[in-house]
């Protein structure tokens, strides 16, 4: 950043904004066609949880990715960094479909023609990341035989990755500290309402405490919150320790993190006109990360993290 001068900083900032607009714009157009809330409004809570499960459980781990790209934080000289981070949680092949069974339930809750009759409900079909051309079904069974089968909703996006993108600003260089912020201003997205996103974190390089180590060591934490209209709110936090070592233009790093996340969903089930709201915890509570950063003036970064789920992250970093 020092070498780039003021003109370079402005250019980097403009480029970041362009990338941010592209990311948000692409997201909104992709999502506008098939409205998640519109799909969920056609099903009840049990179906919604099972249908959304790969998203509910894996989005938090995606948010907790790409939190650092080196453990080397200067102790003198204030520096600024701007980056665009892309993260994704890889989902298992089987997570594109689901089957949820409810035994000994009043079938009238799912088909009014069977009010008062007890049986088994089997909900099955594509998840949110399953086949977009196939509807799921809710089938009622009495005495081992199907008595009704009602179509439900198709997948929203056919993919094996739960994606996430974020702009990130970092400021550091005093006493080995670095503060980071992820932020998207309140943005109206068609069919979703306002998106609000804010995350922050602090990292500290331990070289004043742990001297003569062959690697840089850093500890830190991060907290993030993303809201999408009245439909969704997700929180993610991570406490991590990381080490890195530079080899000419290449920096290799690795880290361990304890983390948690949750997601709340609220919508109205149109059939019954009832408000539905539920909250689930993310599936992952720890991870091991391995990554590399290539410093060509602009830094290119990629990492993979292994925990209950596998996450990938990459970024373009201008500055520190």
């Amino acid at each position, binding site marked *: 950043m020092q070498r780039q001068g003021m003109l370079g900083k402005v250019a980097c900032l403009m480029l970041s904004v362009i990338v941010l607009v592209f990311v948000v714009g692409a997201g909104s157009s992709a999502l506008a066609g098939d409205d998640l809330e519109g799909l969920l409004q056609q099903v009840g809570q049990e179906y919604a949880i099972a249908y959304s499960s790969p998203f509910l459980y894996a989005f938090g781990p995606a948010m907790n990715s790409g939190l650092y790209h080196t453990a080397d934080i200067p102790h003198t000289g204030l520096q600024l960094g701007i980056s665009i981070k892309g993260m994704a949680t890889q*989902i*298992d092949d089987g997570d594109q479909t689901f*089957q949820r069974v409810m035994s000994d339930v009043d079938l009238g809750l799912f088909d009014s023609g069977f009010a008062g009759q007890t049986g088994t409900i089997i909900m099955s079909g594509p998840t949110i990341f399953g086949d977009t051309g196939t509807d799921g079904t809710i*089938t009622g069974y009495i005495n*081992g*035989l199907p008595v009704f089968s009602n179509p439900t909703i198709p997948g929203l996006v056919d993919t094996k990755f739960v994606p996430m993108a974020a702009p990130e600003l970092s400021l550091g260089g005093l006493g080995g500290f670095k503060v980071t912020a992820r932020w998207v201003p309140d943005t109206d997205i068609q069919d979703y309402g306002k998106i609000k996103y804010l995350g922050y974190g602090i990292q500290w390089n331990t070289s004043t405490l742990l001297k003569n180590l062959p690697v840089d060591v850093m500890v830190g934490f991060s907290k993030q919150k993303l809201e999408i209209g009245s439909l969704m709110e997700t929180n993610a936090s991570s406490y991590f320790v990381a080490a890195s070592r530079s080899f000419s233009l290449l920096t290799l790093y690795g880290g361990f993190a304890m983390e948690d996340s949750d997601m709340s969903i609220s919508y109205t089930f149109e059939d019954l006109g009832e408000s539905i709201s539920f909250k689930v915890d993310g599936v992952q509570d720890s991870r091991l990360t391995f990554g590399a950063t290539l410093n060509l003036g602009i830094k290119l970064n990629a990492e993979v993290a292994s925990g209950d789920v596998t996450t990938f992250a990459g970024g373009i970093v201008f500055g520190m």
Partner: protein
Amino acid sequence: MMKKISLILFLGIGLGLFSGCQSDALAPHDAAPALTEQDSANQAGFVAFAVAQVGPLAVTYDQKSEVYTFPVGSEVQGSVELDFRTGGAQGAPSTPSAADYAAISTMGDDGLTIESPLGGMIHLTANLMASISRGTNDSATLLAGSGGTLDAGAYTASFTMSDLTVFESGYPTGGPIVFDNGYHTLELNFNGTHLVSISLDGDVINNFDLDSMGLQTKPRD
């Protein structure tokens, strides 16, 4: 030297992580609940019902077409393919009225569809081979090797049959139909009435009523 060791260490950790790149399953994949004896008997009863509806075609069918489609509104929907022969299974093709052997096969992946009294759809595929006897009430005995599958939504079953006789008029006799849905193996026997006995391990546990399409008795304790 230290740099080389660090590089090797980092790459080792990285390769280790990459080699284990697989996420835990997140979506529920609940198994369908196990079926009770009564549930299994209920499913098996519909196989008996289908055989009682389809089998008699071996002696009642008199059209030239090799495909018979059950009329709209009947309890069984779909089509079957019929093959009539004289001189047994390896004999020459013949007209239905002159045949002493008939093979009846359901068509398509779904085969025949039966709507249960409560409204659900059950699909059956079957291949029936029958030896025909002519008389005042023509009959056909279903031969060993006859059988098929039942598809009841999340549940599937297979069945075989032998020594089961269907008539031009009246209910079938004999059996058994051996029905296996993975939870229970049941034997079904006809006695010339509208009731089909369903046995598990040699004990009769239910009767299936071909007229009402339902189990008549409660399961054994």
